[in-house]
């Protein structure tokens, strides 16, 4: 447990604060919705309610991360956001297909949802059309994926932020700011086992110390790809893996599907309390009013 010498930025969206020194704000948990498509809306609603309830009971902020895979799904997912999420509650949109990204942004703008939107993500595959659409419809916040195909070390992740490893004409930080996105979260790009997967965790303090930006990752990706775990109870591994993020100074976790909520939220709340106790005693970092330590031990 430690504190950074670099001043740490804190970004707010819809009443949730992300960033700061370890122990200052609770870890924000992003839970994935619709990864397998939008066929089971009722199931998704049930899981979303469960996540929001756990967030209330553990005092850990929750943000649903909506996977959007097909153009035809865009209206249904936007309807779901409008009807099922509390008004003003932030959400993120996770779009893999670069052709879909401008369409999603335009639709979010049309429904006046951009002020609640966390765009997941800007990465080295960014297209000119995506840049222009981001400029026209800037989301309130964006995640930059620090994936570097040339170098999967923590330094490689810094390089992609700084100069895109010379794959693009500018670094991803500058590209994001040029597009009008000022509230930036860094995702350290968890890779499959064997591809320096631990570097996603190691890169968290490196990037926070360098830029002072909020940092996190989707360590669940590594767990999911660890096929040898199939015969064991993976949810335990998932919950404990996500705990590594805050232990290394991270600010948020893309913890996997919503079905993992019941195991992840208590672990993260417990750990945030542990960290807060130490960093307040050693570094004098006060927990925010909404921090689980303040709420459980007023």
């Amino acid at each position, binding site marked *: 447990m430690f504190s950074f010498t670099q001043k740490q930025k804190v970004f707010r969206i819809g009443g949730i604060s992300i960033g700061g020194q370890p122990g200052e704000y609770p870890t924000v948990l992003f839970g994935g919705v619709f990864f397998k498509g939008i066929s089971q809306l009722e199931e998704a609603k049930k899981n979303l309610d469960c996540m929001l309830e756990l967030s209330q009971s553990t005092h850990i902020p929750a943000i649903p991360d909506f996977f959007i895979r097909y153009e035809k799904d865009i209206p249904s997912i936007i309807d779901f956001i409008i009807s099922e999420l509390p008004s003003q509650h932030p959400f993120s949109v996770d779009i893999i297909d670069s052709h879909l990204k401008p369409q999603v942004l335009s639709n979010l703008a049309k429904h006046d949802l951009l002020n609640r939107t966390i765009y997941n993500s800007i990465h080295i595959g960014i297209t000119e059309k995506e840049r222009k659409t981001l400029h026209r419809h800037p989301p309130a916040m964006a995640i930059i994926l620090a994936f570097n*195909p*040339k170098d999967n070390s923590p*330094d490689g992740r*810094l390089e992609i932020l*700084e100069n895109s490893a010379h794959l693009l004409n500018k670094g991803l930080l500058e590209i994001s700011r040029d597009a009008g996105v000022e509230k930036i979260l860094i995702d350290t790009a968890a890779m499959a086992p064997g591809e320096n997967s631990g570097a996603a965790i190691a890169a968290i303090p490196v990037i926070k110390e360098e830029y002072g930006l909020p940092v996190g990752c*989707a360590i669940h*990706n590594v767990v999911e790809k660890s096929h040898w775990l199939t015969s064991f109870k993976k949810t335990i591994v998932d919950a404990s893996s996500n705990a590594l993020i805050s232990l290394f100074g991270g600010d948020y976790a893309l913890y996997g599907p919503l079905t993992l909520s019941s195991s992840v939220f208590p672990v993260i709340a417990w750990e945030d309390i542990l960290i807060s106790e130490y960093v307040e005693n050693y570094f004098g970092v006060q927990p925010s009013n909404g921090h689980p330590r303040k709420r459980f031990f007023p």
Partner: protein
Amino acid sequence: MHNYFHHSKDDIWKSLIQQVFDDLNAAGIDILSDGQTRDPFIQLFARKLKGCRLRNRVEIIDDIGYSTPITVDDQRYIKSIIPPEKKLKGVITGPYTLAKSCIDLYYHDEQEVAFSFANALRNEVEELQSSIDILGIDEPFFSVSFPEYAQDLLDILTKNISLPTFLHVCGNVSSVTPKIFDLPVDILSHEFKARPDLFDIFQDYSYPQSLCIGCVRSDDIRIESVQEITSHIQYALSLFGEKIQYLSPDCGQRSLPRDVAYHKLDNLVQAKEALNG
């Protein structure tokens, strides 16, 4: 779970190398290269050498060392796709240029940095030997400042290497003649098109190396005509005769649009063929 690339990374690099090969081969170039597609020429080597950290500029933070082959896989790949009658030049960035391009946070001694790079790169040269036909060494910084230990540096790279060795120094090399002629390489490659004054300077000396004459500019999108290149080569031949063993662009073509680079190469080959009759 996200797959950040739909194709494997290896496939992407291979397709880029294939693109380089397609252009060089279509233009009729005899000596091919991998095009150094992966990185700019400093980062390409620094990325895989121990002791280097890539920031906006490369930083040296520990003992420089060789841990893994750097360009060998790419050279083997292009060797596997080129016709047997074509030759392959493997290019390494010279130790002095690497030393001058990096920020030294560890040795605090430029000479020590340069020798550390040279010793590390020697391993790469040995690994490359069986995959390439010609070894190229890029030392553009020699035209800016020529170290008194240049010969020792290149000795480390070229000693007991059986391949023909090119030394490419772009920029104005007039200030480093005749010292450059003492270097242990077989062929000197310079920007004779951008710096025609080099013709007069090289005429004043005798030297053991052969010459590679730069015939089209690498810093100008204007495409030199076949006639213009032919005249340039004829003039070079009138001065140096059989000393000239190779014709090439002045320097790497990284900064040129792909179609411009291709047309320059195409015209260069046409000019050579016109002269050969």
